[in-house]
């Protein structure tokens, strides 16, 4: 039971971080379907840092990994920003390209590193067992992960920034009615860039949290298994509001955690459901939830539409 709570909180942390990233980007008016790719890049940066810093003090590992993951994510979303804000490209297409590109880049980079170390090692796996301990404090059976706190701070900060600051309100104006925002002297391009880069920051951190949850090595060939998209589902279910996103993330995190720990529950094992079903459940639930919540969705009105100063 403790294990279930632990994993629920951990996956909820991932989902809420990444969903908040999507939330900032969409409030500014840019759909970031590339969050999956952003997560992969954050995970790549973080995992490699952990690999090379295995012997450093725990505090240093934690902050450097966090920083590198965030920077990788930000750097990667620059590609989205350039294409969709400055060149007015189709945001769905660019997001998809970023997802495919990230997995390819990560696989190539990791394989190249592995092969340079040992020509016979052609796997795309990075190991970080030792460095992972930096993130965890044990309370009896419960393993507290610092990233749970990071996610909580992110949720509170996001709520404050979006609703209580000038920056947040202006950002949301750009996603609702960019022409009106422009007419009162707000630079729509700058704020959209801010939204996109914040999504890279949060998505990158989400990526490293995801791959360190539960396992101590990661095979980059498989990307992050649709988690970026699950986060988008969480964002929609949370109606683009940080508070609701936090609750939605807990719900989805619970179902995702179930697939990790169901074998620890006597009555679930007794039901004799194949493990594959548990793997399927998070996706199935999100599909059903989306079907019921998308109808009255409160999506930012101007999201997905490139802003053109000339059009009124």
């Amino acid at each position, binding site marked *: 039971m403790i294990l279930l709570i632990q994993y629920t909180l951990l996956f909820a942390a991932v989902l809420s971080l990444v969903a908040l990233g999507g939330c900032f980007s969409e409030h500014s008016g840019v759909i970031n379907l590339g969050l999956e790719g952003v997560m992969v890049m954050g995970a790549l940066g973080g995992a490699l840092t952990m690999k090379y810093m295995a012997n450093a003090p725990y505090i240093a590992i934690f902050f450097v990994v966090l920083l590198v993951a965030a920077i990788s994510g930000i750097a990667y979303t620059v590609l989205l920003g350039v294409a969709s804000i400055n060149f007015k490209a189709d945001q769905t297409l660019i997001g998809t390209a970023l997802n495919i590109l990230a997995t390819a*880049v990560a696989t190539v980079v990791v394989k190249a590193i592995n092969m340079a170390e040992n020509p016979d090692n052609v796997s795309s796996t990075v190991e970080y067992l030792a460095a992972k301990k930096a993130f965890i404090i044990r309370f009896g059976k419960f393993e507290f992960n610092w990233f749970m706190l990071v996610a909580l701070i992110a949720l509170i900060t996001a709520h404050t920034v979006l609703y209580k600051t000038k920056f947040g309100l202006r950002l949301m104006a750009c996603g609702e009615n960019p022409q009106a925002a422009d007419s009162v002297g707000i630079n729509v391009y700058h704020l959209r860039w801010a939204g996109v880069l914040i999504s890279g920051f949060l998505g990158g951190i989400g990526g490293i949290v995801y791959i360190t949850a539960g396992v101590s090595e990661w095979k980059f060939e498989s990307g992050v298994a649709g988690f970026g998209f699950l986060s988008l589902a969480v964002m929609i279910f949370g109606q683009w509001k940080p508070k609701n996103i936090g609750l939605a993330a807990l719900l989805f995190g619970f179902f995702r955690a179930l697939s990790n720990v169901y074998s620890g529950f006597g009555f679930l094992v007794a039901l004799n459901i194949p493990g594959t079903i548990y793997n399927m459940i998070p996706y199935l639930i999100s599909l059903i939830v989306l079907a019921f919540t998308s109808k009255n969705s409160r999506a930012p009105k101007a999201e997905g539409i490139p802003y053109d100063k000339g059009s009124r």
Partner: protein
Amino acid sequence: MNNNKKSILKNSGFQSILASLLCILFGLVIGYIVLLFIQPKGANEAILTIIKNFLNYSSPSKMVKYLGNTLIKTAPLLMCALSVQFCYKVGLFNIGAAGQYVIGAGASLYCALALHLPWFVCIIAAAVCGAAYGALVGILKAYNNVNEVISGIMLNWISLYGVNMLLSTVKESSTPYTYALKSENPSALLPSFGLSDMFAKNKYVTIAIPLAIIFAIVIYIIQNKTVFGYELIATGYNKDAAKYAGMKEKKNIIITLAIGGALAAIGASFFFLTGYEQWSCTQSAVPSMGFNGIAATFLGGLNPLGTIFASYFIQHITSGGSYLDKNVYPSQISDLISAIIIYMCGFVLFFKLFLNSRVDNKKDTNANAVDTKSNEGGEKK
């Protein structure tokens, strides 16, 4: 996208080809730079290996045989690309093609191995299941306003786990692979009608290849010459205007995605019913065929006929990647190149606007020049 296609038809076609060639060039250059970073010594050779693909063999018969292998994988890729193209014209981004491909593989292999049905029944079964799966995305989009990209991705994973479970019932006991079609049910193998002899007795070369090309031509005709296709594309331009003009926009969305689903699923049956590869019931990632289809669609300038060449090109470099020296360069370089190509395709619209503004400036000289250039561009491919 091609609003004013009629008035500057040649110009627009030429622009698409030029844009696609630039995307390819850009992708290859980035790929080359990455190769240089990994190991500068063999990078020249490596990029040539990718570009040459089957030409790496010295004997002509081997070349032809391995050209056949590339074509075998081009057929399903083309079908996936057509699926994406058909939906994109209606304003729908069918990223679910990957999952529909998985469903097609599951349906056709289950019919072949468990029910022992002949090949054409297997293809039809795949088409029906794929269509149902696509229609599900369409219904969610039309009636529940669910973004088709997100529902598509969710269904991709659901289909992968589902098909893995389904096909576990017909898998070999010692390996994760499904039974070989050849020994279990030869009647489900696609017929070759002499095609394999043309490719140095490559027995996996079947009618799937010409059939896929026929599908591309049929789609081209539907989109450009029929009322049905016109209505679908009109829905894509402006849903509300289409509704106002008396078209059933919800029905159109569902039909489009159903057809898209059927195309991708047929693509899977075109691949797995050749017996070239068996389904691995333990695979943990959605096959990349559907995603590569997105690359081929956009590289083909969103034209079904252009897609034929683009699919071949994407498969050509993907197969070429497998000839790299595995202890120096990862074969995923090819995936990286295709991904860069998709990314660059995002800039095509901007590029065309830029060209048009240039053309407008010196209008009188363009007519002749563009005409000859477009012919050259066509030959290059």
